[in-house]
């Protein structure tokens, strides 16, 4: 049988909510797809547009950004800043011919361990459907 395409996801998780949710998923032994690998940042607001573009340029098929729910940000409003950047990125990616679904922003609180599973599994599904990322010159230039 043909080897199934295994997408690679770079996940930027904020230290206070989503990273803790991932820890909770762990301690609750919730099983999810091994395709996402986490880069810990203090706040989703730290996620630089360059980080995302770099990830795609270096071969990520998808990028996931996880932050605290609106109003619950450990730094008051970092997640709103992340949201703004996310919108900008969506436009950017569209122009580079990269499917929007490849970038996902999720609010996952420290209590939502199972949400981590749902989001990552869903995303792997989507990316399997989309297939590997084809990198445009535009992308390689900016990153």
């Amino acid at each position, binding site marked *: 049988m043909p080897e199934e395409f295994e997408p690679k996801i770079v996940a930027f998780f904020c230290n206070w909510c989503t990273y803790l949710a991932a820890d909770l998923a762990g301690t609750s032994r*919730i099983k999810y797809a*091994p395709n996402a*690998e986490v880069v810990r940042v203090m706040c989703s607001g730290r996620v630089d547009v360059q980080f995302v573009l*770099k990830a795609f340029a*270096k071969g990520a098929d998808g990028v996931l950004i996880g932050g605290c729910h609106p109003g619950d940000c*450990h730094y008051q409003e970092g997640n709103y800043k992340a949201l703004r950047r996310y919108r900008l990125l969506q436009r950017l990616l569209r122009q580079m011919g990269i499917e929007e679904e490849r970038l996902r922003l999720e609010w996952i609180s420290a209590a939502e361990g199972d949400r981590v599973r749902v989001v990552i599994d869903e995303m792997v599904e989507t990316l399997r459907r989309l297939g590997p990322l084809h990198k445009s010159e535009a992308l390689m230039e900016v990153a």
Partner: protein
Amino acid sequence: MPERIVRIGVYTCHCGSNIAATVDVKAVAEFAATLPNVVLSRDYKYMCSDPGQDLIRQDIRSHALNRIVVASCSPHLHEHTFRTALKVGGLNPFYFHMVNIREQASWVHENRVQATRKAKDLVRAAVRRVAFHEPLKRGRVAIHPDVLVLGGGIAGIHAALTLANAGKHVYLVEKEPTIGGHMAKFDKTFPTLDCAACILTPKMSAVRSHPNITLWTYSEVVKVDGYVGNYKVKVLRHPRYIDEDLCAGCLDCLEACVYKQAKVPDAFNLGLSKRRPIYIPFPQAVPQVPVIDPETCIQFKSGKCKTTCVDACGERHAINLHAEPQAHEIEVGTVILATGFQTFDAARVPYYGYGRYGNVYTALEVERLVNASGPTAGQVVMRDGRTPQTVGIVHCVGSRDENTHRWCSRVCCMYSLKLAHLIKEHTGAEVFDFYIDIRTPGKGFEEFYQKLLNERVHFVRGRVAEVTDWVLDPSEEGRLVIRVEDTLAGFVRRIPVDMVVLATGLEPRADAPEIRRLFNISCAGEGFFLERHPKLAPVNTFTDGVFLAGCCQSPKDIPDTVAQAGAAAAEALALIDAGYIETEPNTAHVEESLCCGCKTCMSMCPYHAVSFLPEIYKSRVNEVLCKGCGTCVAACPSGAMRQNLFEDDEIFAEIEGILTNA
């Protein structure tokens, strides 16, 4: 990155079998050894153990390591442990990076091959990243010695007294007109049956008279600024219209009220008795100062009252009907949240008839009934004036139920047993306990259950289906019928009773979300406040200097609450006595040569940590105010803004590490 050649040591942990079971630790270690700059790679059973840490300390010396990577559990668990190990080993603790291959690999994946692959990727990323690490110094902030304790229940009282006795000044802020919380409503406490008042009221008056405690009842926190060691808190004191300093607590004003009969439902007695518009919640209330409730006081409603209360107070002039709310700004170094719980609203499960049938009570109401200082002076008489011959106690009302609350409220079983005993004692009634499981996991609890069994309380295992006035048999006429499957006897039973007691569960207070946001702490799914670590930091929160005590964290009984309150006080003391706290160095700073003075960073910072220096036309970060989120760094268009431990090149290296051979 610093000029010295990089010599990395990588340590992969088995965590017993926790990691080794699904991740091929040996393979990861061997793989790490092949990575650039890695001079040493080991695997070990328990890296966090003393011998584990020792390995690191020795290798630093013997192999001249200058970067350390540990692949084990979540940094939230042991990052601090290993950084300390580096320090002891004579290396700057921030030449370290931790890889989480337990919570993020072995525990969440089943396929050994994939889990191992992921672990390798993560290690590669860390190895690349750590090469860029730079030596950092922790800053220090002084801890203001004063403490804010929010909530005047048994948790808050105990925490406040502990701190005050240690010579610290405490602000105890309580929403209600008196401290005491739920415990003040109880008659006896399980399993020892000692009287709640006898153990609580002395502590309450101790609070009142303690020189180190500033007690503000009828007050709320409305604003919190600052950071660990230096919180600025705004407290709003609602007017009780009676000056606490002038009032002598003679209570003549109550008698003098133009209302000769009490007409207003008494909240403290859960509406089982009435009070006047000017009242004192209960005889042992602290402070011993009445309150005027403007909602019901004639003077406030119409302005046409003889204000006999004012006359009664006479020369003291303690009553001031024109009192205004007062705002106080206080500075504290640490905060203990002891805001407690509320009981489940039994009306949410209509099939138990609360509110429809007068003789259906909540457990808390019965606590008042059996209480000697309660509305019936300890007589268990029902709303219809009768004394019950048969009583049914329904467990798990609003607990263990996906339709209401899924958690077990932990105290209901025991307080139900206690009430069963007290009701029997007061009335000699037949008592039925309807339970799903009897949970008595505390010191002396099981013995108490045994005692109740011998007292011939009927224990029927089954979740009550309904409480109804539907009569099938003449013997049920005029009584409440409990319909339940006796799952042990194996048939459905109809048991007629005179009185039904609903053992309502504990739930987060309605205002918990506001408190949560004020102090910027996380909440567990159910809405209770989230502790930093369920086992290793049960009273800490993710906000430094803010601690938890009592039921605001999760349902618990009085012994556990008091223990936790003590623990919270100790944590606060530890900070205060240290006098300072070391801050994480992951703050932002400006590379002035690159700064173009666009001020983008300033609009990003919610803490006003970034200031602008017009003379050199550059931004500057106040590292004390900076909390290290890095939002400004991501926003800086010129790359002048940088964040320690989260430098761009560090994160780029990590990303590339993950994606090599992707």
